[in-house]
């Protein structure tokens, strides 16, 4: 429970008077890590491209904190030093960046919380998917798959969560439990240091050993990388067909696995919409405008004007209408080698 | 009087000492001689607390004392120059000389007093070291030896043990060390000298104790023993 409760009150004024950059504001984008694909491969280029499109003279200062809250703090300070006019902040630790936001507010620089809801202080905008919702969708998808196979009550599931030292992993975990608790038996549940696929593989192997091969009916993996590790473990243990397993991030390798039937689903965050929406917003705010937001989200301290996007659960039959249609990956990229046949089956070309 | 009784020490397969006894009365220089590997250094190390003996006892004025580590030995007034010198090569001459018995007030070092005392002591021993503030690592073999000897005189010992003190020393410095040993005796200290140089041994010692293969192998009053008798005891030719 932090203080700074007065933050919400003056949000409007700081927001309006920000944008000292006039027609070509400098926009600082802060992303939390570089070890998963999405941030460097999608968020950043999409965001930068959209800014360029809307305002050719605008400058984007890009920062990646490598999952280190202290480093992110330094990055924000560096950006303020360089005269950023808008901060678009995807917090490493969404609960701990309030002082940073406060610093920006003191300098009358507007802040847009990107992807993760910053708590403990008021600020200008929030653009995101809902992390708890992601966990819920993973849990729901797994439940659906188990029900479809009729194995929901007939065995146990294994849950492979993300890093115990990563706060967002706690949200996914919470969401998944919201859906699954009471509906299935949870046999083993692991927090995986560093979201490491190697460790996920070992965890899955140990779960199989501990529970017995035939007692397991499904796997909840918090992201695609770890799902890859768990799938390797299942294959080596001789599962055929593989158990339904969830994922997140829509990594290329995961999409291919979904098409070939090795992975049941992934969470596809329509990062394009998120990045582009944020870019539009950042440019507008940077120019001193104050767009209206469709909704507000209460972060415990203040109501933050918010643009909320829905995560999309992608199973094999939905790849075509989501990922391919959005151009997230080109069909040619997905349908390489062994995946080609599966592509044809799913109608992707 | 310090007395070691029935000391035994085994290193793995090697029985380095087996029931060795030694008397060190005040005001007397005792020379400990013996072949390489006879156990001389090991005996010294048990007396000065560096290695615990397996067996045996050390008494001081007929009361048994416990010497569990070098600190105990120092507290009892036993000061030792080791054959392998045991200097901290990263520290300078002054620091090495006063190591463990620094001049200090409320734990703050008296740099200047120590430096001054070092210079005086080295001058007295006729040791020439051009800069006493350089690390010991850069000294010549004899210079290190001299520093180690000077170390033993810091504080107020009642027994000074010197394990091959003159091995690396020049003619003059050797003479100074022998002279120093005599002066220590005259001040009433007990001195234990280990040396392979029988000429030196005969020149300063009052008594010669011979070790052979880790056992006592003879004891002589220096004035009365011939060089041949001592050598015979060392080599075991007498047996």
């Amino acid at each position: 429970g932090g203080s700074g409760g007065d933050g919400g009150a003056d949000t409007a004024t700081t927001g309006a008077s920000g944008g000292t950059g006039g027609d070509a504001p400098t926009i600082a984008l802060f992303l939390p890590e570089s070890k998963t694909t999405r941030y460097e491969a999608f968020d950043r280029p999409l965001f930068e491209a959209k800014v360029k499109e809307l305002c050719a003279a605008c400058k984007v200062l890009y920062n990646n904190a490598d999952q280190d809250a202290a480093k992110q703090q330094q990055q924000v300070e560096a950006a303020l030093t360089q005269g950023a006019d808008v901060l678009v902040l995807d917090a490493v630790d969404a609960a701990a960046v309030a002082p940073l936001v406060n610093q920006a507010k003191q300098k009358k620089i507007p802040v847009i919380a990107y992807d993760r809801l910053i708590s403990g202080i008021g600020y200008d905008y929030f653009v995101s998917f809902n992390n708890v919702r992601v966990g819920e969708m993973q849990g729901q998808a797994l439940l659906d798959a188990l029900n479809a196979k009729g194995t929901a009550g007939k065995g146990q599931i294994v849950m492979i969560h993300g890093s115990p030292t990563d706060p967002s992993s706690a949200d996914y975990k919470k969401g998944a439990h919201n859906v699954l608790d009471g509906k299935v038996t949870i046999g083993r549940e692991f927090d995986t240091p560093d979201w490491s696929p190697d460790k996920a593989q070992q965890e899955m192997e140990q779960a199989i050993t501990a529970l017995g091969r035939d007692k397991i009916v499904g796997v909840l993996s918090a992201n695609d990388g770890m799902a890859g590790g768990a799938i390797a473990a299942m294959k080596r243990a001789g599962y055929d067909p593989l158990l339904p397993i969830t994922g997140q991030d829509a990594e290329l390798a995961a999409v291919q696995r979904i098409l070939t039937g090795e992975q049941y689903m992934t969470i596809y965050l329509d990062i394009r919409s998120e990045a582009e929406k944020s870019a539009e917003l950042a440019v507008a705010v940077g120019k001193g405008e104050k767009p209206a937001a469709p909704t507000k989200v209460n972060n415990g301290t203040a109501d933050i004007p918010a643009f909320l996007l829905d995560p999309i659960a992608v199973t094999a039959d939905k790849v075509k209408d989501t990922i391919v249609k959005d151009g997230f990956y080109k069909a040619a990229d997905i349908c390489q080698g062994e995946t080609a046949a599966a592509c044809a089956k799913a109608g992707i070309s | 009087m310090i007395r070691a009784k029935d000391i035994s020490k085994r290193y793995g397969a090697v029985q380095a000492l087996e029931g060795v006894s030694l008397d060190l009365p005040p005001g007397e220089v005792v020379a400990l001689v013996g072949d390489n590997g006879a156990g001389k250094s090991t005996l010294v190390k048990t007396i000065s607390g560096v290695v615990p003996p397996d067996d045996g006892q050390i008494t001081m004025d007929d009361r048994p004392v416990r010497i569990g580590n070098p600190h105990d030995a120092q507290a009892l007034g036993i000061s030792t120059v080791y054959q392998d010198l045991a200097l901290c090569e990263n520290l300078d001459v002054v620091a090495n000389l006063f190591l463990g018995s620094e001049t200090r007030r409320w734990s703050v070092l008296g740099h200047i007093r120590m430096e001054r005392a070092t210079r005086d002591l080295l001058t007295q021993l006729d040791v020439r070291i051009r800069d006493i503030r350089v690390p010991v690592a850069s000294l010549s073999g004899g210079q290190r030896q001299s520093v180690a000897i000077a170390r033993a005189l810091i504080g107020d010992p009642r027994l000074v043990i010197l394990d091959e003190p003159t091995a690396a020393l020049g003619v003059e410095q050797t003479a100074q060390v022998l002279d120093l040993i005599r002066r220590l005796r005259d001040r009433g200290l007990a001195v234990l000298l280990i040396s392979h140089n029988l000429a030196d041994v005969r020149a300063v010692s009052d008594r010669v104790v011979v070790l052979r293969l880790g056992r006592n192998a003879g004891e002589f009053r220096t004035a009365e023993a011939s060089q041949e008798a001592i050598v015979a005891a060392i080599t075991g030719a007498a047996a």
Partner: protein
Amino acid sequence: MSATTVPDQTPKPFSPRQAVERIRRGDLGAWPVVAGLIAIAIVFGSLNENFLSPENLTNLVLQMAATGTISLGIIMVLLLGEIDLAAGSVSGLCAVVMTILNVRHGWNPVLSIAVAVAAGAAIGLVHGLMFTRIRMPSFVVTLAGLIGWQGLLLYLLGQGGTINLPFDGFVAKLSDTWLPPWFAWTLAVALTALYAGSLLLGRRMRLAADLPVTPVYRTAVRAGGLAVVLAGAVAVLQADRGVPLLLVIFATLVVVLDLVLRHTAFGRWMYAVGGNAEAARRAGINVTRIRVLAFVLSAALAAFGGILAASRLSAVNQSSGGSDILLMAIAAAVIGGTSLFGGRGRTYAALLGILVIQSITNGMLLLNVDSSVRYMVTAAVLALAVAIDSLARRGSAQ
């Protein structure tokens, strides 16, 4: 003189008294670590009945090969009293190189592996030259490596992130190949015979040179011990999927490197440089070359370890070679008895150390506990396993 010298040099025949002697003077070799392993086995075995099942032991073997190989490389550098912090990054980078060549460019897998290991060796050469020529501390050189090669890995992986290795491809198959039973048994018998033969031959040659020898029955005990261990291992592993190729590869590396260290001039010089580099230099040994070679070996083994890890996962990704792989590899070496100060250690340290570490990890994952508790227990068990070793040695010091 030889009349008095020779009897002294002959070790007394084996006797309980002598065994107590050896224990007293701390000449315990690897036994305390083995005792620690047994303790771990008993504890986890009683907490979870699956821990000692053939299936789990097979998993354990598979889990330890990659980090164990990296640890072997680390030992090469530790023997010199230096450190290689870049081993993790190098393992990840070279695995990525191998995967890109194999998957994206369609190169022959063996060739890809060879090129990747060569790349690792080249990286080691760079480290070694910076250390010996510019005389930067190895800690800093390899710290820069740790960061820089990780950067290169991210750069090479680029947008895509994870790259899958085909599941039935050569590389992935490396860690999913099992020796046929007849072959496994033949191998075990052949190894035992070879070992016994070499012991007997050495004994004969020593007798011929009029050198002291140990009694024949001790030779028999040693060869018999090996036979029992090998037979036990094969029997247990056969009860599950068989003897994994991965184990054979790792064990071969351990044994071959041990032979190199103990029986070649190069190995001897490694120990000499680690013990006293100046003495080695004065003995005319090219210290620079030894040092560079150690770094090359370390990086090449790290590269190979990374490839084994990729084979296990059938994929490489941004976190390849990251996480705590480096720390575990160093810890394995140290737990196995390699000194951080150089000059002391054998390659079996990697085997024993990684066994200790992986047993703990493996056992902790079988038990269903919270991750915070898992961390604490892992630390406690690790400390305990090493404390057994240290206490045994301590009881015998001096």
